[in-house]
């Protein structure tokens, strides 16, 4: 020991971790913080999804889609066929009203998911 180089000895001493009685508590606190951060991140992602879904649905609803849809029903099946074809091309979906309800449904689903996730985490 007497021959040990002092700096090597010092480095070794620094390498020896002190013993803390609350070491387990410290680890738990870090783990809890990590979990909380992760949960918050997931909630934020969920909330962003909901906002995006709602915005998309609102865009659809506030667009001329609804008026055109009512016009379609008034002007008969001939025009309806044309317009449906147009929207079919636009959304690549089966029908006009289905698109709207699908968007609303998805937004509702996302909202429900976010709420359950939030309740789960909190």
């Amino acid at each position, binding site marked *: 020991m*007497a*021959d*040990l*180089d*002092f*700096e*090597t*000895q*010092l*480095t070794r*001493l*620094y*390498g020896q*971790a*002190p*013993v*803390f009685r609350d*070491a*387990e508590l*410290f*680890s738990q*606190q*870090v*783990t809890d*913080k*990590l*979990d909380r*951060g*992760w949960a918050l991140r997931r909630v934020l992602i969920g909330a962003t999804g909901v906002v995006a879904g709602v915005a998309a649905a609102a865009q659809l609803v506030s667009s001329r889609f609804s008026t055109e849809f009512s016009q379609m029903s008034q002007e008969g099946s001939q025009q309806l066929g044309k317009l449906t074809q147009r929207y079919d091309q636009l959304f690549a979906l089966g029908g006009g009203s289905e698109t709207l309800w699908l968007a609303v449904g998805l937004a509702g689903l996302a909202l429900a998911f976010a709420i359950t996730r939030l309740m789960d985490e909190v």
Partner: protein
Amino acid sequence: MGAERPPTGHDVELAALAAAGDRRAFGELVRRHGSAVRGLLRRLGADPATADDVAQDAFLVGYEQIADYRGEGAFAGWIKRIAARLYLRKVKREARLVLTETPEDDAPVAADGPAATADRLDLDEALKSLSKAERLCVSLCYGADWSHAEAAEALNIPLGTVKSHVKRGLDKLRARMAAPSGNASNDSARRESHG
């Protein structure tokens, strides 16, 4: 998914698992190295509460950056470097860092005889005999394995100042711990060559 299994294995394996999103694996790393990080921060001069706060932050930052750790060195060293950096940032932000003072020849070191102090290797006690600057520089270089140049850059002080703080700190520690005063030129040269 095996989420309940207790994480075991080498630090590098646990780090790889943590990088893949396994928080339990990272929790095990915290369990293994938490005390070392807390100890280092206290040795750098942080009070216990600050040391624990910074240590927690260091692990959180470590988790965010875990993909950067590829096992080139010990995980303990890697996380200690993060902790030291965070601590320095904190003390600098709080303007509590005054390191450019000229060395006082105060703090007389009790140069006990080797026989009387042969068993007194309490580093933490010995560190109390160092000035704040000496303690910080010595602990950065020997506890966090920073080179003198790295310490100078992080502390924003001249390299020569760091070297003199380290030298005086070592002299005091050597006397305090009554270690053989054999030179340690090899290790010193290694650190200086980093710069």
